[in-house]
């Protein structure tokens, strides 16, 4: 395996990518596809890529964590040099990234660090991270939350809390509600799910989720219930309005901002949360030669989804190679499809397409499935198999 010292010399043109998730892994592969003369170094601490999409099915036991975990061997086959380390700082003037005790030079940098949690927004949360789980980054927490759910006594109360928008994957919490409710209905029929949503109503695929929930009388949804405090010693959360809710198992999804490296490198805007970028090249409006993609961006008018991160990765890769070759960047727009599983076998979807208008990303159309069905679920499986390969293989 390579180490930082292997990158001390930069013999030719080099693109460094921070983060081997949905955006970064895609970008790394597509830079190599677009111009194999460019060296690509991908920094990612995790040895395995675990997919957030489909991870809600691990909670309900419909899929295994192994079935959504992949290695980085496919990227290496494209000539991407994968280094399993964190980037700890970016020096834009020196055009280098700090990794451990060393530095890696770049000609252009692509940053796709996903989201970080704003622990401080919920009283008691920072100190309770080992017991109060988010499972909002797929991996060990997903497995741990599934275990908590399985070991809950029948008759127990599962509380799921949703942060205010903008957060990663707008429909994700509602899909999770479906999976937990389906699991409880099937395996623990005397139990109950309480959803405390900081938003006034379901923020994505509203009608479709509401229709799906009519089959789950064990699901109680409470809008405008922002959770501001958690106390694991008495198994209780408190809302902004002062309501207290007891739980046997809690899944607290904290408020979010851009990945930490994007904040410390001053890529975020005045809100200190998200990064503003050029809509065609994804170059940061604050730092030259640094591009930001995925959940860390302001989201143009697009959702924080894996499908969007993948699309941004491809577009950014083409833009970066064109810029390194002093060629014009053609107009390229992302697309988005978010499937959500509403039971063990049925799914719904929302699809958005976009164009470039006056240099900006503009939506062409949004379309929903007319209802839920097994056929959309089969298309969801098809989408997942295709896009995982598009990212990693």
């Amino acid at each position, binding site marked *: 395996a390579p180490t930082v010292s292997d990158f001390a010399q930069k013999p030719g043109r080099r693109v460094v990518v921070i983060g081997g998730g949905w955006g970064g892994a895609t970008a790394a592969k597509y830079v190599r*596809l677009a111009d194999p003369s460019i060296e690509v170094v991908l920094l990612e601490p995790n040895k395995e890529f675990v997919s957030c999409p489909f991870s809600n099915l691990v909670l309900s036991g419909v899929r295994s964590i192994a079935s959504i975990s992949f290695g980085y061997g496919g990227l290496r086959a494209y000539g991407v040099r994968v280094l399993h380390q964190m980037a700890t700082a970016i020096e834009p003037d020196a055009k280098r990234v700090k990794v451990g005790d060393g530095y890696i030079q770049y000609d252009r940098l692509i940053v796709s660090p996903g989201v970080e949690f704003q622990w401080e927004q919920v009283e008691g949360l920072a100190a309770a991270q080992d017991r109060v789980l988010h499972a909002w980054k797929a991996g060990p927490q997903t497995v741990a939350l599934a275990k908590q759910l399985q070991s809950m006594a029948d008759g127990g109360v599962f509380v799921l809390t949703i942060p205010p928008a903008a957060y990663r994957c707008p429909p994700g919490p509602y899909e999770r509600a479906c999976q937990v409710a389906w699991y409880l209905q099937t395996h623990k029929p005397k139990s109950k799910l309480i959803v405390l949503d900081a938003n006034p109503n379901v923020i994505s695929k509203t009608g479709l989720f509401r229709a799906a929930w009519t089959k789950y009388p064990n699901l109680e949804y409470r809008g405008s219930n922002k959770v501001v405090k958690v106390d694991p010693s008495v198994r209780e959360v408190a809302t902004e309005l002062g309501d207290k809710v007891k739980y046997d198992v809690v899944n607290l999804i904290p408020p979010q901002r851009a990945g930490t490296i994007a904040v410390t490198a001053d890529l975020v805007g005045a809100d200190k949360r998200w990064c503003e970028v050029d809509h065609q090249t994804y170059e940061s409006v604050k730092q030259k030669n640094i591009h930001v993609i995925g959940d860390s961006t302001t989201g143009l008018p697009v959702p924080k989804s894996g499908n969007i991160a993948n*699309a941004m990765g491809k577009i950014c890769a083409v833009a970066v190679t064109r810029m390194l070759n002093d060629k014009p960047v053609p107009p390229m727009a992302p697309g988005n499809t978010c499937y959500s599983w509403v039971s063990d076998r049925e799914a719904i979807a929302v699809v958005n*397409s976009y*164009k470039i208008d006056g240099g900006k990303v503009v939506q*062409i*159309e949004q379309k929903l499935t007319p209802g839920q069905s097994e056929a959309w679920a089969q298309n969801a*499986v098809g*989408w997942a198999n*295709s*896009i995982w390969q598009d990212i990693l293989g």
Partner: protein
Amino acid sequence: DAPGATSALACSACHGLGGQSPSNTMPILAGIAPWYFKKAIQDYAAGKRPSPEMEPYAKMVLQFGVDEIAAYFAGQARTPSPVKLDAAAVERGRAAAAQCTVCHGASGKGDASKGVPDLTGQPPGYLRNQMLLFKADRRSPGDDTIKAVKALMKTIPDEQFADLAAYWSSVR
């Protein structure tokens, strides 16, 4: 690097790199005939061939230029679907496939003059889905120009679609 390739970047999320779909329900676009590609895109965009996935993307294709994108996919060599086929199903399908060759040709490669597409090497799940949609008149409902294929599908029991799909997927 072709203009069609950069406009078509969004498609690979479902249809695979170069239109070479690795999955069972997403059709392969590599090697697709341009006339058929255009017809499919126009039918989706108009809502005539209903698909919540494809309607927005079809509008995107029209926005970026359907001819360039059609030419890009037509220029990609088609590798048959990697989805594993059941050998017994392929044989059963072969025995029933004579009723298809009148239109799709003995090779299954289709016939532009009759508006009939290539079936070969497509993922079996996709082929089966389309046959079910024809049978239920849910692909381009009410379109008289494709009445004959729908009438034929109505005579075929649902169980046989998987066999026919496996056979046409296996043809090279």
